[in-house]
């Protein structure tokens, strides 16, 4: 343990080692470290941003879905209403038709009763005339009393 020329050798070795470390080891390693730190920070930031965006997209999607559902409901309601309307209209049409047919039938019936009544009246008139003829065969001339008879027929 005495100081000797080894000291000089060690000083040179130490200085060289420091120089080497200063020029070839420290800068690239530190650069790499700081660069990676920056990268990691950027990555974290991007992830955060993506997370926010994802959240926004999620709310947007939910919004869209809600809107679509609402629209569908609306359309469904409209369709229902339309169907109801159509059915109403059909029913009304049918009722109208039925009424019209009934009216026609009624009219026919009335016309036929009228006819029947006319015929009946005619027959009654002719019957009455014939009875009256039979009664008044001699003294009533049909040609003379035709106007009178017609008036009678009309009154029946």
């Amino acid at each position, binding site marked *: 343990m005495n100081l*000797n020329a080894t000291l000089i050798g060690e000083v040179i070795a130490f200085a060289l080692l420091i120089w080497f470390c200063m020029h*070839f080891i420290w800068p690239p390693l530190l650069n790499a470290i700081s660069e990676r730190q*920056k990268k990691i920070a950027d990555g974290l930031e991007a992830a955060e941003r993506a997370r926010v965006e994802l959240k926004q997209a999620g709310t947007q999607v939910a919004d869209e879905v809600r809107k679509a559902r609402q629209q569908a409901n609306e359309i469904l309601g409209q369709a229902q209403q339309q169907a109801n309307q159509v059915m109403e209209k059909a029913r009304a049409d049918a009722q109208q038709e039925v009424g019209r047919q009934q009216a026609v039938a009624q009219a026919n019936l009335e016309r036929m009763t009228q006819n029947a009544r006319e015929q009946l009246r005619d027959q009654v008139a002719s019957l009455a005339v014939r009875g009256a003829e039979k009664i008044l065969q001699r003294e009533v001339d049909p040609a003379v009393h035709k106007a009178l008879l017609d008036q009678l027929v009309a009154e029946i």
Partner: protein
Amino acid sequence: MSTEAPMGLSEYITHHLGNLTVQVGPGGFWTLQVDTLAVSLIFAVIISLWLWSFARRASSGVPSRGQAFVELVVEFVDGQVKDVFHGDSRLLGPLALTVFLWVLFMNLMDVLPIDAIPRALSLFGVEHFRAVPTAEITTTFAMSLTIFVLTIFYSFRAKGFGGYMKEVFTEPFGPWLAPLNLLMNLIEMVSKPVSLAMRLFGNMYAGELVFMLLAGMIGAGSAVLFGLGVVGYLAWGIFELLIILIQAFIFMVLSVVYIAMAQQHH
């Protein structure tokens, strides 16, 4: 080395405290401790290649496991430096990383079995070998002296020659006691690197010595001492791991603190 059977504990330890030296010039100073230099240089190369292999293809993508580990170490050191020094510094970070890793690796040689490397090398005829470079005062002083020089350099750069001289002569007691101020500042200036070096050296040296003692107990030939030695070796090894980490950490933090202090005004 083959005649280690009759060797006593004291001789064993003295033998282990010997360095592998080469005389490169006249006088006691011009000896090179080849073991210290070799181990520290090997670690310097290993650390450089290890870090460089990751730094060269460092990317900001997904890191491989090795790169993640290296980045963990770098970020740890960077955090410590930023705790102490608020400002832009191109030197402090690499310096702290170098100091931390180099000291840590050299300290880690301490937990290798104390006999392993010397015994292996003795097969090749190497008589003495001390495997822990930081248990040599030369290594720790070399580092603390480098840091000392950097401290002075940064003081000059931050305050200018005049400003620094003014601070040295007037700082604690005002301009009327200039010699006393100079003395105080000199003591402060010298005590920093000395304490820094001595702290690491003392820790590692004591750790090594205790390991040697315990190894001597294991080899003493008595069953009780053998058991005690093994248990003690294990316990001290675990404690030493903690010390190794803490001392490397402290050396790094204090170097950074000294240089950071030099750059700011009192």
